[in-house]
């Protein structure tokens, strides 16, 4: 079971975990991205994500299909939230299950890496000083977050 969604509501990570669990799977690996209170050394009070929604959904599906084939994963779900988010809110969650642990772990990691490369979603950070800026990961001085 493969499912990808761009959502504009809270992400329920527990529901994602339940969704991928199965009697034949001994391992579930989960990655959760949350909004940090600091970015590139500056205080953040919140942020917004904009998406080219139809393409973001199809890219996310393509990533999950690739990952499922590469790691022989039976169950893999991912959701990315868009809109306004506060500190600590979950922006992305990925859950992968497999009979064994290594493919499950590597699959979830592959998916988050690919999301960060090619899903058309953009983050605009709302800084403590009142400014709002679109993040350009190609220009960051800090290791990319999260």
């Amino acid at each position, binding site marked *: 079971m493969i499912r990808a969604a761009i959502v504009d509501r809270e992400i329920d990570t527990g529901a994602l975990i339940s969704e991928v669990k199965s009697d034949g799977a001994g391992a579930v690996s989960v990655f959760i991205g949350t909004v940090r209170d600091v970015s590139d050394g500056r205080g953040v009070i919140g942020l917004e994500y904009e998406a*080219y929604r139809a*393409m973001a959904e199809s890219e996310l599906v393509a990533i999950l299909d690739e990952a499922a084939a590469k790691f022989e994963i039976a169950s893999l779900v991912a959701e990315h939230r868009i809109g306004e988010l506060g500190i600590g809110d979950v922006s992305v969650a990925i859950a992968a299950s497999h009979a064994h642990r290594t493919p499950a772990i590597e699959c979830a990691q592959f998916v988050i890496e690919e999301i960060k490369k090619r*899903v*058309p*979603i953009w983050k605009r950070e709302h800084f403590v000083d009142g400014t709002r800026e*679109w*993040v350009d990961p190609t220009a960051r001085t800090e290791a990319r977050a999260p």
Partner: protein
Amino acid sequence: MSAVTVHLFASYAESFGVKNLTIELAPQSTVADLVAALRSLPGSFVLPAIPRVAINKKFAVPDQLIRLTDEIALIPPVSGG
């Protein structure tokens, strides 16, 4: 010459000041031709050397031909996750 609509997002929309641009293209124009045309517009300083372009919701290569019916978008560096 025919007109195509180019969808803009995030920092590109901010820099060009609009969410959609209408661009006149000659027949048999490619993605590279489209990008060259965009560079004459105010706000185009935001574009990197090789901006990513999506045709019909898929990333396109520079020599890909553009059809009038295509859904065209400029994709700023992504920052989801």
